[in-house]
């Protein structure tokens, strides 16, 4: 909705955006728009403890998908001032269907840096890394430039603005692999190891990067911090329409008229997002299903469209809020093929550490492929359902496998008949079917 006028108080994350030319907001522009005033205010008026308490009060939840309370995460860092300790910015955005951090990284790099400096102060870190995925080239260039600008203004480096706070930010780019976005895998990757997640506990706050206390926060989470420092936690709580506080970047993709990403208060309905912001489904296309927040979230249907977009409400209707970037599936899409695509992704990106995930996902892909090819047998649906349990929560080291099961289990539940339609109904033996399939391939 381009006609919406954005104010700092209503759109704290995006009001500074250059909506016309989409140019990045460099330091001069950022200064003109109140930039780094939160940092200055904090250095003059607050202690690290004050900042943590403020963020706790604001009830800000992590924007990477899991929704853990940021202030609580920060307060898990050990009280004793043992250094070094690290702040890691998770900018490894790779969840299929998610495109929100890219906007903040490319166009508002200083907002992120300011948020990181304040957060670093709060957890008494001396050093931070931004773990950026390798394919985000413009984000890399823009962040590099912004870091130099911030260093030249004395916002980064030794004794920031004359205080005794010293803080350095290093930009680190990845070399592929979705699993790097899992916070402990990200730490392993930064240490130059394979990106296998670590078993928790110990939590990164106690044993993190190089064994030191470490806090990992998402790009959008950190970008929220400056406005909270400037406007306070009461304001932050009030701008949302639900129990989850503040605003959130939400979006809709797929065959909608105006796919995109918008800053909206938590608690607006999915229907509003789809109809008012994304301008509804394209002509000739009907909504069949949707995922509220990324590839690893359960499908919902049109019936759920009036649900509030926030963590609790979405889980009440049987899915997960995730990244809040929704995807519309239209009536022309075959659900079995769609789920096959999703599971191929999860299978390819499994880090291989635990057996259910490493072995189960390729198996699921094979079974789904047999559905698509028309080979599937009756009991295959049961096998899939069983695998959803075997790979479900609590069976693996990280949430990758359970996440992969969410779209599968919900697709079977909601569209069982589409799976059943793929089951072999004729009397061909398997061998005959294989021959038939090969002939078909040759004809192509």
């Amino acid at each position: 909705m381009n006609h919406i006028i954005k104010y700092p108080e209503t759109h704290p994350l995006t009001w500074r955006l250059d909506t016309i030319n989409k140019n990045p907001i460099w330091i001069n522009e950022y200064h003109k728009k109140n930039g780094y005033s939160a940092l200055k205010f904090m250095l003059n008026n607050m202690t690290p403890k004050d900042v943590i308490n403020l963020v706790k009060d604001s009830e800000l939840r992590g924007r990477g998908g899991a929704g853990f309370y940021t202030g609580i995460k920060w307060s898990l860092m050990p009280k004793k001032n043992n250094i070094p300790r690290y702040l890691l910015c998770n900018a490894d955005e790779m969840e299929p269907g998610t495109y929100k951090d890219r906007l903040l990284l490319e166009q508002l790099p200083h907002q992120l840096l300011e948020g990181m400096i304040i957060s670093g102060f709060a957890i008494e870190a001396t050093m931070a890394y931004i773990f950026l995925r390798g394919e985000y080239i413009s984000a890399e260039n823009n962040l590099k430039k912004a870091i130099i600008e911030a260093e030249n203004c004395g916002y980064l480096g030794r004794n920031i603005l004359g205080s005794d706070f010293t803080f350095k930010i290093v930009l680190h780019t990845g070399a592929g692999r979705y699993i790097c976005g899992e916070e402990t895998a990200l730490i392993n990757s930064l240490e130059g190891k394979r990106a296998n997640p670590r078993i928790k506990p110990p939590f990164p706050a106690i044993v993190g990067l190089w064994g030191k206390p470490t806090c990992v926060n998402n790009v959008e989470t950190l970008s929220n911090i400056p406005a909270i420092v400037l406007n306070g936690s009461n304001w932050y709580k009030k701008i949302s329409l639900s129990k989850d506080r503040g605003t959130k970047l939400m979006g809709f993709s797929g065959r909608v008229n105006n796919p995109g990403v918008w800053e909206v208060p938590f608690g607006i309905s999915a229907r509003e997002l789809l109809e008012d912001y994304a301008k509804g489904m394209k002509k000739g296309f009907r909504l069949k299903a949707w995922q509220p927040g990324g590839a690893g979230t359960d499908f919902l249907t049109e019936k759920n469209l009036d649900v509030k977009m926030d963590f609790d409400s979405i889980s009440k209707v049987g899915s997960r809020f995730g990244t809040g970037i929704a995807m519309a599936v239209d009536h022309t899409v075959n659900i079995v093929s769609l789920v096959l695509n999703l599971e191929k992704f999860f299978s390819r990106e499994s880090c291989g550490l635990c057996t259910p995930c490493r072995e189960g996902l390729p198996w699921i892909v094979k079974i789904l492929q047999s559905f698509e090819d028309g080979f599937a047998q009756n009991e295959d649906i049961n096998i899939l359902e069983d695998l959803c349990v075997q790979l479900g929560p609590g069976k693996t080291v990280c949430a990758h496998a359970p996440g992969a099961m969410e779209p599968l289990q919900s697709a079977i539940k909601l569209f069982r008949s589409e799976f059943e339609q793929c089951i072999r109904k004729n009397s061909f033996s398997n061998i005959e079917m294989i021959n038939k399939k090969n002939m078909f391939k040759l004809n192509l």
Partner: protein
Amino acid sequence: MNMMKNKLNDLELKKIEEEKKNYEDNKSISIEALKIVQSSRGWVSDELITEISKILNISESQLEEIATFYSQIYRKPVGYNIIKYCDSVVCYMMGSDNIKCKLENILKIKIGQTTNDNKFTLLPISCLGNCDKAPVIMINNKTYSNIKISYIPILLEKY
């Protein structure tokens, strides 16, 4: 000439050296070192793995373990230009399969292969974070969005 090919050049050595000041130990810069070497040569050969491991003072097998885990480190020769087409869910719905087929037909290669003239290598990639402009492909460092089949021949002409 061959000697040079198997040795790190001064620029690469300097870049790797510069990285050292940002990290606590050498192992942490192994991915970056691989990327530095790959950026000018396209891929990382066995000989270069040995060279990098010497510079970083870590074992070859440790480095190989990293090189084979990360999907964007190439341990085989690739073409001058790398085409990555997004095969994730939104692009899939918006027709990435057709784009893949078109690319395969024009280039006369399959996924993972390199054209005869060494000009292009075709690879799949996970969601490029541009799903509101799907389908999306990336050629080298450039992202192209809202791809239409008819654009593809024109797009490839540029390379």
